[in-house]
């Protein structure tokens, strides 16, 4: 952490603090709608961090993070609805379950030297397999879904993660901030450097005595655990869970867009990506409504075109480019 802080120019420091301050004070002027958009920004920044650890740092492409998200969401929500175990406790049961799933997939894949596209396919296969399984799991409502009681303004129960938008706003902000600090710290840690070595050249990394398998498993452990926490937030924020939505490959894809657009393997990439992508989609919806267009496909088409343009022009993501132009890093960087 201190390393990242030291390597940031005074402009960068000022910008980071200003941004945090703006987000902390935003609820004073923001209306419910703007708050809901910002909640999504933080949520995607946080999940982007989680995925970025595995792909950006350890270099292993997962297209099945919906699995850990869904396991986290379903575990905490089911514990609450079925056994009355609250989410603050439930999250500590959700984490080991998702982490175990992640470690199992990692073990299965990396033991047998399954990497790249093959590993990505393996992660998709497990997520889809689980989705269909939950579609038929009666105890969690199968395909009919799992529901939490509707959240009235009055029913502010922060200890059960029930309450108004403010609760979720600050919770999401806390998640995103904690995620950023954790990633920044890991990036500068010995483990972080091992990940980068393994990502850049596995053979050379092995030659200098790094246990590749272990480094990757550590990345998976942290990534899946973080994603599970995001899943608990998802479950209690949306208050309804359908296997076809939570475990869907669309979920896996949507949570990897922010880090890729923002900049893979960077600490601030997922944040920048989430800040760019989420409002983009929302603005588009508003714009189309004001123009009287009611075609849901148009928004997604614009989204798809944007993705294609950004990946064609800035394949390393927006953050490295931004940092260079705004001189946010120290000149030596």
């Amino acid at each position, binding site marked *: 952490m201190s390393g990242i802080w030291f390597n940031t120019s005074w402009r960068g420091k000022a910008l980071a603090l200003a941004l945090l301050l703006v987000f902390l004070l935003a609820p004073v002027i923001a209306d419910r709608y703007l708050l809901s958009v910002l909640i999504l920004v933080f949520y995607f920044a946080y999940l982007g961090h989680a995925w970025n650890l595995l792909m950006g740092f350890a270099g292993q492409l997962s297209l099945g993070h919906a699995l850990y998200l869904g396991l986290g969401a379903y575990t905490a929500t089911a514990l609450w609805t079925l056994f009355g175990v609250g989410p603050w406790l439930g999250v500590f049961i959700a984490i080991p379950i998702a982490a175990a799933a992640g470690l199992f997939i990692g073990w299965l894949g990396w033991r047998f030297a399954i990497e790249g596209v093959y590993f990505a396919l393996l992660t998709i296969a497990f997520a889809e397999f689980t989705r269909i399984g939950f579609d038929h799991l009666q105890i969690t409502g199968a395909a009919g879904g799992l529901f939490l009681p509707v959240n009235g303004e009055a029913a502010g129960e922060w200890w059960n993660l029930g309450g108004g938008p403010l609760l979720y706003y600050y919770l999401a902000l806390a998640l995103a901030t904690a995620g950023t600090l954790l990633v920044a710290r890991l990036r500068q840690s010995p483990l972080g450097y091992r990940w980068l070595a393994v990502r850049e050249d596995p053979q050379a990394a092995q030659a200098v005595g790094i246990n590749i398998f272990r480094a990757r498993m550590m990345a998976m452990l942290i990534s899946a655990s973080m994603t599970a926490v995001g899943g608990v937030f998802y479950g209690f924020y949306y208050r309804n869970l359908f296997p076809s939505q939570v475990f869907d490959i669309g979920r896996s894809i949507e949570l990897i*867009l922010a880090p890729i657009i923002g900049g893979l393997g960077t600490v601030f990439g997922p944040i920048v990506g989430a800040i760019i992508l989420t409002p983009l989609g929302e603005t588009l919806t508003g714009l189309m409504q004001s123009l009287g267009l009611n075609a849901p496909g148009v928004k997604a088409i614009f989204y798809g075109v944007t993705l294609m343009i950004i990946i064609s022009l800035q394949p390393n993501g927006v953050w490295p480019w931004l940092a260079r132009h705004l001189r946010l890093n120290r000149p030596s960087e």
Partner: protein
Amino acid sequence: MTAITLNVIVQGLLTGLVYGLMALGLSVIFGVMRVVNFAHGEFTVVAMYAAFVLFEVLHLDPLIVLLPIAAVFFGIGYLLQRTLINPFVGRAEHEQFILLVGLATVIVNGLLLVFGPDARPINLSYSFDSYAVGPMFLDKVRVFAAIGALAVAAALLLFFRYTRTGTAIRACADNLTGAAVIGLDVKQLYAVTFGLGLACVGAAGTLMATIADASPSLAQAYTLLAFTIVIIGGLGSMVGALIGGILIGVSEALAGFYIQPSMKSMFSFALLIIVLVLRPQGLMGRRL
């Protein structure tokens, strides 16, 4: 019991051949260029809609428009490779992935805008006819579709084995540097390859339209299906794609009949996981 099982297996086998043709397109594209075409299912569904529109407007049988659609898809693939995809050859997988996911999103939502979310069946005069072969009843459309798929696949296999262009493309796949050194126009060959991959998709989608109703929601499922089949069969192995297709077709049919239709793809994914773990190079793959 055995007669029913046999029926189910054979129906699955016939459908599986069409799956196999679709996967063949993916296998060719990935095997030669190492580009992960995550818009594969989307293109398949575009072909299904093309067959649907030609049938509704001009009353043309999908089997008649099979080759024209495949030819048009060849052109689309050729142009796509030349313009959009070529800069991404050799780039990181996640970059290709984002590009093609973007393309897939555009295609699916374009279809949604134009045709809406409803499933569009092609009601042929012989849609419900079947042949009685011994104890089995074979749907006429499935038999035709399977024959069509086999014919196109065979044509492609012969093309790669015996024509100069086909041999040159295989050379690019085996040794890119070597191919460039002896003066092969790699860019051109890649464009032809992507065109051929999409021609497979065009043909497979047209055939698929006779046995399944076209709908935008199929696209993603088909993309996953194609990848599953290719990995099971073995990347880069054309015969493997067909065998993988048959395996998945049969497993889907059996699971759909004996367990539950909504759980059929669970068995495909289980099969994929088993193959990836026990034999990552796929059933017919040579090496990883």
